[in-house]
Structures are given as C-alpha cells and as structure tokens.
C-alpha cells in the first residue's frame, strides 16, 4: 500500500474500482459456473464473502506469527478451515443451495480472490482494515456474480429468481413472451453463454475504465499474481498471462 487509505475507501474500492471479478479478473471459475440463476449467484457470493472476511481477519491477526517462507500453505489451511465450516452450515441449513452449488462450495478454497486478498492485503495490513477489505471485496464479488447471473438467467429462461436462501420470489416473463412467440435464448444458460456474457461485461468494464483513464482489466501479470513467489513459470522466461 503506497498511500494510506481510510476505512471507507478500503470498503468502496472492492465494489467498483477494484472489483475482484470485473477489474482484477480473479475467481473466474465460480463466476462462470454458478451464474446460471440469481439465487445461486447470491448464495455463492454470501458463502465466499463470509470465508473472505473470516480468513482476512485471522490471517491479518497472525501476520506477524506466520513465517513468510511457509505463508502460502498456512493461508490455505486457514481458508480451508473456514470453507469447511461454511460448507457444513450450508449443508445443514440450506441443502437446496448445497445441491445447486455442488463442488463449487468446497472449491472456494482455491478461489483466487481469497488467497489473493490474503497475500496482497491481509498479510500486510491491520485486522480492522483487513476485515473491511474483506467485506468490500466480498460484496464486489457478489455484485458481479448477480449482475452476470441476471443477464444469463433473464435471456436464457426469461425468469429472474430473486431469492436469498430460499426466501423471495421468482419473476417470470416466460409465459407472456411465449404467447407472442418469443422463446428464451437457451444458450445463455449453457456453458458458451457464460463465456460470452463474461467477455461482454469485461469489455464494458474496460470501456468505462478507459473513459475514466484507468488501466484495462487483464489477467494479472506475473508480478502481481498471488502465486508469484512460488511460481517458476516466470523464472523460466515464460509469460503466465498476457
């Protein structure tokens, strides 16, 4: 951190300016996989946010205790512990969500947003700032997921499942539109639609960023990658990203 930011700035940076999905391009796997309905996107967003806040707090509290050479394995164990807790909670209280997220719930462990924030922020900053960073990044992740899910679900089925953990309603335009002969574009729900909508959102984010004179969203260059310390691709002279 070159300049000192206020807590408010730490919180808001994750929402738009450094949105983890659309600006930092982290956590692409769950972003593409769970955004078939808004309900799943919200569930995944909440689960990841809880893990992110808890792991940020613990890692930040232990940042002076953990030797820097073994920090990555330590971070992963801490993150895995919280993921297991969240997983058990979801299994017990929201079994439907557990079924629809499937293996992406345990896979929060290897979500690069969480390890990335641990390495880039929590291991260098105080507990309160790390917690706030976790909240902001988590909400930013959820916003991006919900945005993408809304586009995919609406065009793919003409429905919007506005539910949080089973509470809420489903808005459906499928019947009125079918009666005038308009069918949903199924491919938006399928795998190619995920790639396409993600590409579209990144392109729009790039356009807005360029208009404001900010850097474009790209896959992280080697130096900024959370795995840079242990990665040998760079040492071998290969490019790991564009």
């Amino acid at each position, binding site marked *: 951190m070159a300049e000192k930011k206020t807590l408010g700035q730490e919180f808001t940076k994750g929402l738009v300016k450094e949105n983890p999905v659309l600006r930092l391009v982290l956590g692409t*796997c769950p972003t593409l996989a769970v955004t078939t309905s808004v309900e799943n996107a919200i569930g995944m967003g909440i689960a990841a946010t809880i893990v992110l806040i808890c792991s940020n707090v613990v890692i930040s509290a232990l940042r002076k205790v953990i030797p820097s050479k073994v920090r990555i*394995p330590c971070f992963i164990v801490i993150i895995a512990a919280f993921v*297991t807790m969240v997983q058990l909670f979801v299994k017990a209280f929201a079994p439907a969500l557990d079924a629809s997220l*499937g293996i992406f719930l345990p896979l929060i462990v*290897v*979500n690069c947003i969480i390890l990335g924030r641990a390495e880039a922020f929590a291991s260098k900053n105080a507990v309160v700032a790390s917690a706030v960073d976790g909240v902001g990044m988590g909400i930013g992740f959820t916003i991006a997921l919900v945005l993408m899910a809304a586009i995919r679900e609406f065009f793919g089925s003409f429905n919007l499942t506005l539910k949080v953990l089973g509470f809420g309603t489903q808005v459906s335009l499928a019947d009125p539109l079918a009666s005038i002969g308009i069918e949903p574009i199924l491919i938006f729900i399928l795998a*190619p639609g995920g790639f396409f909508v993600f590409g579209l959102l990144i392109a729009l984010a*790039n356009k807005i960023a360029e208009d404001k004179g900010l850097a474009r969203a*790209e896959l992280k260059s080697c130096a900024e990658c959370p795995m840079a310390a242990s990665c040998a*691709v760079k040492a071998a002279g290969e490019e790991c990203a564009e």
Partner: protein
Amino acid sequence: MKLFAIILTAILTQNFILSKFLGICPFLGVSKKTDTAVGMSAAVIFVMVLATVATYPINSFLVSQGLGYLQTIVFILVIAALVQFVEIVLKKYMPPLYESLGIFLPLITTNCAVLGVVTLNIQESYNFIESIANSLGAGLGFMLAMVMFSGVRERLEGNDFPKMWNGLPITLVAAAIVACSFLGFTGVVENIFGV
C-alpha cells in the same frame, strides 16, 4: 466398458474447462502458445491421476474414522505436499522431464481442476479404478481444450478488434465459440454406451 464411458464423458460431454468451468485460469492464462499449453496440460494430467491415487485411500480412512468433514482441508494439503514432492523428485532424478513439466507444477497446487476432480470422484462415489479413469479423462479433456484453444488464440493474435474488446474480452468470446462446439457432444456418450 463402463470405464471407457467414464473417460469419454470426462473428455467430451463433461469437459472440465468448457462445460464444468474448472481450471479457467490456466485455460485463459497459459494458452497463448501451443507448446506451453501442452506442457501445462501434461503436468495437470500427471498431478490429477497422482492426486486421485493418493487421496482415495486417505478419504476411505477419514470416512472410516468418522472424520469425513475434514475432506477439503486434507485434500488441499495432500495435493500441495504431493506437488512439492513430485517437483523435488523430478528435479533430482529426471531433469529432462522437470525441464518440460516442472515449471508448471507449482501453478497446479491452487488449480481448482485438481481439487475439483478428487472431490468429484468422492461425490460420484466412484471406486478406485473408476476414480483413476475419471481423473485421466478429465486431464485428457483439459489437454484437448487447452490445445484447441491455443490454436484459436494464435489466430486471434494481431487481429484488429474494436478497442474495448481487445485482449481478455475477445479471448472469452473465442472461448464461448469453442465451448459451443463441445455442446455438440451432448448425449453422444450416453447414447453409445446406454448409461
């Protein structure tokens, strides 16, 4: 016959990258050149199969002790330790192989495809041999998608796109089109093998 069906399903209909969205980071990051894509995927196949061989008995032991909930923590640690171990062994005893695969190994520790495949094997309650078949298929499918996509990427290079689409967005749109081609395999394996 069932093994063959599992392998084909993992390669074609349930391709790890293009229909399950596991391992997107290396798919987008390391697919710029075909030889890098091949090296990375070979390392992924190797680690996937090895991780399955290592985690299957460990999971049976955990379940028998009533510690099934430790699965995620134990798996990620086993994979991390395994990758380190393989790297050290390759470096010492097989330098040529290390040259071609070794550099990709550390990247794989936190790759969701590897943790994904071992978790999936347990969830689908495959037996030991079926688990290995599934991992092998998943790895081969990973390689197929990576190599195909690196070919597409080489063609994208140097084309003149509208400015906002340059770089990552156009790569994702290309990935969408490659994923479309894999949609064509839907139902093929089920129909051939009647599973």
